[in-house]
């Protein structure tokens, strides 16, 4: 059903993410949607969210598409307990790559179509730290869920 991300779908996801951030997390934040090449489709910054969050949200979405995995998984590569375990000792060499755009902070998730192909990504920034179910990743998940509602 979903072949390619359109602006209309991106806005739908952003609205859902914003609703969740406002009503459940109760924290203002920024959410961004990029296409399958990592190019920005849309970004929204909620009132009161820090000004840097838009750019971080965009980088998270880009990074999720670039590696086709959630940035939460990428953050584990750099966890001192995992260095040398998941990717070998060179994991730290990834920091600063991708023309400085690679972001290893949780909150970015790739968006896949019915065939499992990555057609875009969503990124969220502004939730101070993961406390229980409240995190940048959970806001992004709320946004993605809206895309799969029939």
């Amino acid at each position, binding site marked *: 059903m979903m072949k390619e991300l*359109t*602006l209309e779908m991106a806005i739908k996801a952003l609205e859902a993410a*914003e609703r969740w951030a406002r009503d459940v997390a109760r924290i203002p934040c920024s959410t961004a949607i990029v296409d399958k090449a990592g190019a920005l489709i*849309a*970004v*929204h*910054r909620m009132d009161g969210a820090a*000004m840097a969050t838009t*750019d971080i949200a965009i980088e998270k979405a880009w990074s999720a598409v670039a590696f086709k995995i959630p940035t939460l998984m990428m953050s584990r590569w750099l966890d001192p307990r995992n260095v040398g375990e998941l990717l070998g000792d060179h994991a730290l060499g990834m920091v600063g790559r991708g023309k400085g755009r690679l972001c290893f902070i949780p909150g970015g998730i790739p968006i896949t179509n019915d065939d499992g192909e990555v057609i875009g990504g969503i990124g969220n920034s502004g939730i101070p730290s993961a406390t229980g179910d409240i995190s940048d990743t959970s806001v992004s998940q709320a946004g993605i869920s809206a895309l799969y509602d029939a």
Partner: protein
Amino acid sequence: MGVTLDIAKKMLLAGRGKARTLGILCSIAIVDENGWLVGLHRMDGVPIATVDIARDKAWTAVAFKLPTSDVSRFGDPSTPGFGLNSQNWNDRLTTIPGGLPVKDADQVIGGVGVSGGTLEQDVVVCQATMAVVDG
């Protein structure tokens, strides 16, 4: 008080409507009174470079509190502020038309930048977004 997300969304909607009327595709960026992005939409099929151009136009409009096309007047040696247009502040400054400051009465509360059509069309889309603020 700067542009809120609510106002930005209405402006983006108005801008997209105008772009459709004109038969063009474009990116539209809305920034707050400090030049920071509040909302940005890229219509389907628009070249991706327009994203950054629209954002830069909006930033420039707020930074100078002038339409981006007016920033080029600083290229005239007889103008006070001569040369401001050639300093690439923040790597963002642009003198391409298509960026306008958003004003509430006399106060600059944000900026809008459009890229994708001809320069004239970009300005028309910018002006269409203003209708939201002007009421």
